[in-house]
C-alpha cells in the first residue's frame, strides 16, 4: 500500500494540530512517516512541543498588588 508523501512545508503547516491531536488519522500517518526520516521536522516538532509545555507550566500573569481589592471596591460603588 503506497502512502502519499508530504513535504516539510506541509508538515510545518500541520504541526500545531498534530501536537493538539486534532488531525485525521490519514494525515497523522503521513506525518509520522515523514518525521521518521526527517531530522529538521523532528526538531521543529520537539521544539514546538516544548514551547507548549513551557507555556502550560511556566507562564502566570500575576495580578498586580491590590488588584482584587480595587476591583471589589469599584464594584461596590
Amino acid at each position, binding site marked *: 500500500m503506497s502512502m502519499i508523501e508530504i513535504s516539510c512545508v506541509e508538515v510545518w503547516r500541520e504541526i500545531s494540530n498534530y501536537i493538539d491531536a486534532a488531525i485525521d488519522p490519514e494525515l497523522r500517518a503521513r506525518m509520522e512517516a515523514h518525521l521518521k526520516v526527517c*531530522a529538521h521536522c523532528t526538531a521543529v516538532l520537539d521544539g514546538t512541543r516544548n514551547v507548549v509545555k513551557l507555556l502550560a507550566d511556566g*507562564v502566570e500573569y500575576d495580578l498586580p498588588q491590590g488588584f482584587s481589592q480595587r476591583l471589589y471596591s469599584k464594584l461596590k460603588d
Partner: protein
Amino acid sequence: MGVAKPPLDANEAELIQRVCQGDKEAFYGLVRPYERAVYAAAISILNNPADAEEVAQEAVLKAFSSLARFRGEAKFSTWLIQITINEARLKLRKDRRHLYESVDEPRSDEEGDYFPQDFADWREVPSEALQRKELGQALKHAIAGLAPKYREVLILRDVQHFSTEETARALGISEGNVKTRLLRARLQMRDALAPGIDGSWTTGKAEYKKVRPW
C-alpha cells in the same frame, strides 16, 4: 462524544440569579475565579499592566451591568473574556500610541506560510537550565514580541487553556483562524526561544521574519 455538558455551572447559575435579584456581592464571587484570566486576556492585547488593570475593571463592571443579557448559552467565563477582549480593543483604538496599528480583524488569514528559522534540535525542555522565574520572564518577553493577533490566541489557548471553540468565540474569529494563528504563534515562540549556537538561552529578536514561499 457523549451528551454535551450544560455550559453553565449550577453554582454559577445560582449566583447569577442572586445578582439579578440585587445581590452585588454575589457578582464578585462569580468573577473571582476568573480574575487572572481576565487580566491575562487584557494584557495579551494591551501589553502593559496599568492598561490591563484598567480594562479588566471596566470589563467586569460592564459584565455586571449587562448580566441580565447573559443567556447561559456559552460558559460564563467565555462571555466574560469576550467582553474583556472587546474592551481592550476599544482602548487600543482610543490610545493614540496605536494610531496606526490595525485592530480590525482581517477578512482572512492572508499571509504565506511561516517557515521555522532554526533547526537546532532541543529535545530537552530547557527549564532545568534556568531558574523558574527567569524562564517565566523569558516566556513573557517572547510573548510580548508577538504580533497582537498571534499573542491573543497563544495566551488564550496555551496559557489559559481555552478550547479552540472558546477561543474563537472570545475573539470573534473562526476556529480555522484560531488554529492558523496558533500555529504561527507557536513557531515564532520556538524561534524566539531557541538556544543560541553556544547553547545558552536567548530571548530572541523582537521582530519575526516572515518568509514567503517562492
